[in-house]
């Protein structure tokens, strides 16, 4: 019996080639999408799993609520870690890390700029799992001026030499001894390192500041210890240690300060949750978001559903052709269960072929998808014990889902009727239409989503930010110029393609430090949190930031080192009338700064945020960046000119630069990625849906052959017939629009809420998506309609 069933299944697959093709391709593309998305999601969920103690590792983060808002920071005060271990027995170990973005390191004649450089406590390896290739984890970072390197970095500096006890020189000339080599940083880590230097080398690690958040602090809890219980003890701890320092700074006790509604606290987040859930200030790297895991999972399920629906629809539509077989089998004694099993078997077989094809598709697409998603994904089917069983399970589940409706539908035919050649009652055709509506609803939702994400990203890229980020080349590590920064600038400006240049520590799009300020005459507890930006005299000229009133820093006024410039938001928050000439001071400091000017608000952060209050201060020391405004003509010449000048000034320091607009668009990298993935999958979804529609239209045309013949015999024109056949599907797509629009509006409106600056969702987007779906559907259907309409009516009538 099974053999007979398989045989007839294969013959059916072969006989109805178009049908089989549509189903196998559709399901294969659907399954391939699901596998790709699954790989993506699994990758996101596997972050930090390489840490043996991952379940017990927590990062401590701090929060503060003061005038000007609330903020949560990934960084904590220097003494926190050690204090936690000392005070709470459930805290087994702590470690602190601090990144330094650009570290110039010299070994013999080689100089490299290390961007993944961290200072770390010697306890690093008690918390994180890092395998040592050389050296001893117990002692590697114990002494000041010691470093450990990853395997690749060691190779970069030392080639085949033994790195242990080699000496490298940091930028300030201090020698550091290599004490260990560890395996390269795993990809799925929330921070990526090449090199750690001992924390004992820097003084700030020993500082007893409780009000400055500097280090990333990680702790390991003892087995069975509860993080919530521990967290509940933190307010007391803060009071005990930070309280006296707060009193010293502000002249107010912690209790009184808290009573005013202010807060300063520490909290725990589990290491595993950081990658998908943590969006604090000062994150070491931008994290992903669980939201995207959900969105992509839902898309995957929908695409698979669309493919399954194709199968259901085509199989039931085709039922007319199978009805005789069902009748004969029933007459010969088959019961319904046997027929259901037979049809399920066919659908499982078809699914099996699809999944084989899907695996091939995944292999082909994986490199592109990795590119698209910015991840390094591997299918590695056979490294996993569960692969084969789960594939078999998938075949069964998808096969049964897709096959169940046709199986029950077909097996319910009454032999008397079907053998008499009576047309199958049109029962179930509303169900089929419903499924088509469902497919197109999803496709339209995805279309609308794609359009809106695209529009929003466009809007962000082109939005007026209040400064000009175009043609601004930024030289990194400008401090390498030391005292020659000014002369370097002057040398550059001699070239007529160089329009302006400035030395600055802060740039739009970079992370800002925020500082508490106190306006003149305000009470000591009235503190305001303001973002700070340190730059030189030419900063606003170079970035084309507009003054609202007053003036900017100028060499003409030597007293400007004690002056500040505010943005309009800051004036609003501080609530100062006629701000020019008024004074501000850093919290806890007696030195006051005079307000000399107000700049118009500009977006110095991503457009996710609204513009925050900002203080601009004059930078007197060395600076991190040198933004250089260049002419839009001869850009490559300008770049090489600047490079050559740099070589002339500091011949043995590497020249590194970026363009400000490029850097700025990186703020939207996750949206950019989402947009691309979204586009790809919505195109696939509509492709699979159209494929199904194509098949369905073919069967409808065939089913109505006689009707078409009669109509033509009675004088219907070709266009009449095409209209007749397209009407049904047009109706489906229109209903799909009605369903899709509100759903898409709801979700996209929510998505846009993440942006402080966003587009209005326009009706046109919906109309465009709807029309596009309609056009695709009509094109698909019309092909068959034309064929059916052109056919000679005598032919179609003779067959009946």
């Amino acid at each position, binding site marked *: *019996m099974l053999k*007979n069933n398989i*045989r*007839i299944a294969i*013959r*059916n697959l072969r*006989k109805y080639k178009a049908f089989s093709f549509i189903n196998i391709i559709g399901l294969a593309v659907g399954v391939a999408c699901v596998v790709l998305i699954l790989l993506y999601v699994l990758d996101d969920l596997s972050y930090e799993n390489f840490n043996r103690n991952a379940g017990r590792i927590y990062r401590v983060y701090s929060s503060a609520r003061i005038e000007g808002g609330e903020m949560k920071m990934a960084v904590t005060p220097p003494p926190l870690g050690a204090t936690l271990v000392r005070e709470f027995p459930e805290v087994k170990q702590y470690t602190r890390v601090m990144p330094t973005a650009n570290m110039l390191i010299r070994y013999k004649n080689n100089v490299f700029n290390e961007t993944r450089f961290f200072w770390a406590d010697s306890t690093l390896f008690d918390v994180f799992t890092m395998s040592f290739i050389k050296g001893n984890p117990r002692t590697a970072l114990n002494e000041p001026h010691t470093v450990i390197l990853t395997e690749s970095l060691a190779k970069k500096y030392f080639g085949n030499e033994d790195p242990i006890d080699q000496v490298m020189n940091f930028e300030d000339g201090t020698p550091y001894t290599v004490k260990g080599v560890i395996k390269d940083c795993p990809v799925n880590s929330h921070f990526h390192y090449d090199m750690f230097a001992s924390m004992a080398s820097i003084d700030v690690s020993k500082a007893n500041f409780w009000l400055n958040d500097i280090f990333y602090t990680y702790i390991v809890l003892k087995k069975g210890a509860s993080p919530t219980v521990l967290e509940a003890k933190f307010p007391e701890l803060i009071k005990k240690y930070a309280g006296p320092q707060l009193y010293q700074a502000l002249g107010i006790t912690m209790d009184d300060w808290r009573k005013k509604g202010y807060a300063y606290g520490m909290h725990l987040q589990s290491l595993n949750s950081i990658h998908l859930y943590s969006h604090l200030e000062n994150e070491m790297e931008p994290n992903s978001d669980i939201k995207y895991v959900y969105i992509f999972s839902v898309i995957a399920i929908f695409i698979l559903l669309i493919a399954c629906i194709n199968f259901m629809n085509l199989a039931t539509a085709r039922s007319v052709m199978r009805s*005789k*077989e069902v*009748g*004969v*089998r*029933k*007459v*010969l*004694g*088959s*019961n*319904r269960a*046997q027929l259901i099993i037979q049809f399920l078997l066919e659908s499982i077989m078809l699914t099996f072929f699809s999944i084989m094809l899907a695996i091939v598709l995944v292999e082909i697409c994986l490199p592109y998808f990795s590119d698209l998603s910015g991840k390094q994904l591997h299918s590695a089917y056979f490294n996993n014990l569960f692969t084969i069983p789960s594939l078999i399970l998938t075949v069964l589940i998808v096969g049964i889902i897709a096959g169940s409706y046709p199986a029950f539908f077909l097996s319910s035919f009454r*032999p*008397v009727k079907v*053998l*008499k*050649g009576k047309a199958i009652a049109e029962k179930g055709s509303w169900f089929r239409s419903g499924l088509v509506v469902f497919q197109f609803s999803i496709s339209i939702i995805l279309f609308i989503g794609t359009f809106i994400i695209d529009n929003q990203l466009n809007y962000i890229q082109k939005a007026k930010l209040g400064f000009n980020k175009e043609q601004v080349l930024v030289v990194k590590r400008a401090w390498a110029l030391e005292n020659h920064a000014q002369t370097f600038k002057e040398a550059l400006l001699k070239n007529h393609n160089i329009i302006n240049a400035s030395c600055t520590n802060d740039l739009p799009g970079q992370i800002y430090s925020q500082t508490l300020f106190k306006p003149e005459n305000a009470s000591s507890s009235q503190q305001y949190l303001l973002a700070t930006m340190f730059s030189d005299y030419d900063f606003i000229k170079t970035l084309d930031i507009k003054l609202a009133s007053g003036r900017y820093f100028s060499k003409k006024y030597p007293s400007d080192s004690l002056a500040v410039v505010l943005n309009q938001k800051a004036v609003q928050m501080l609530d100062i009338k006629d701000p020019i000439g008024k004074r501000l001071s850093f919290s806890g400091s007696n030195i006051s700064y005079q307000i000399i000017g107000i700049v118009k608000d500009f977006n110095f952060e991503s457009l996710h945020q609204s513009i925050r209050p900002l203080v601009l201060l004059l930078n007197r020391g060395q600076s991190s960046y040198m933004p250089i405004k260049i002419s839009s003509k001869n850009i490559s010449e300008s770049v090489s000119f600047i490079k050559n000048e740099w070589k002339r000034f500091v011949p043995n320091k590497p020249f590194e630069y970026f363009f400000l607009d490029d850097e700025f668009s990186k703020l939207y990298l996750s949206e950019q990625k989402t947009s691309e993935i979204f586009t790809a999958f919505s195109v696939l979804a509509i492709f699979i849906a159209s494929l199904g529609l194509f098949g369905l239209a073919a069967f409808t045309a065939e089913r109505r052959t006689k009707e078409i013949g009669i109509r033509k015999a009675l004088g219907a024109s070709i266009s009449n017939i095409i209209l007749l056949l397209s009407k049904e599907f047009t109706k489906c797509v229109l209903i799909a629009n009605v369903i899709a629009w509100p759903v898409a509006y709801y979700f996209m409106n929510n998505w846009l809420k993440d942006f402080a600056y966003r587009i209005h969702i326009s009706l046109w987007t919906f109309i465009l998506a709807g029309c596009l779906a309609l056009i695709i559907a009509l094109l698909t259907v019309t092909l068959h309609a034309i064929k059916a309409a052109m056919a000679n009516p005598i032919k179609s009538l003779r067959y009946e």
Partner: protein
Amino acid sequence: MIKTVNMRKIYTTEEVETTALNSVNIEINEKEFVAIMGPSGCGKSTLLNVFGLLDNPTDGEFHFLEQEVSKYSERQRANLRKANIGFVFQSFNLIDELTVYENVELPLLYLGISSNERNKMVTNVLERMQIMHRKDHFPQQLSGGQQQRVAVSRAVVAKPKLILADEPTGNLDSANGEEVMNILTQLNEEGTTIVMVTHSPHDSEFAHRIIHLFDGHVVTENYKEKFHV
């Protein structure tokens, strides 16, 4: 073998109620060859469907093999049917995707007969029907007469007690029609009960008894001298 008592069959659609069979009292004995005749729409096919356990009567009694089966479920009817009844249709109703051999084998599969036994039975019947040389062909590759011989093979392969034939010669030319009728007669002589619906007076001549139906009623029953109850 078959006995109906005041059997009625009423089809109801949304608007119309059609009485297909009205107070039908028929008795058919084993080894009989009965022809059912009547104009289109008189209820011949409905009667055959009820006899074939493809349809239940609306009311009245229907005894098949000494069992009152009018209230049987679909599954019960299927079990009774597959073991005892063979069908021959006007339009052959062969499954296009199966070969001649597989089509004939199908009822044996549903009876759960072993593969060896099946092979023997199928080969036997195909040889007898002189269609063995076509066993690996598909139905579409055969002539109408050949197709009907396959259909008859399929109807008799499981050695049913009753063969129901619905205008078995309707789609055949006279030579092929004659051949099919001869096969049926031969089967009847070997002991199989045959009930045949036909329009053709010529075909009805092969039967022992002709039942005339009109508007769902049995109007006459003509016995022939060949067979006596």
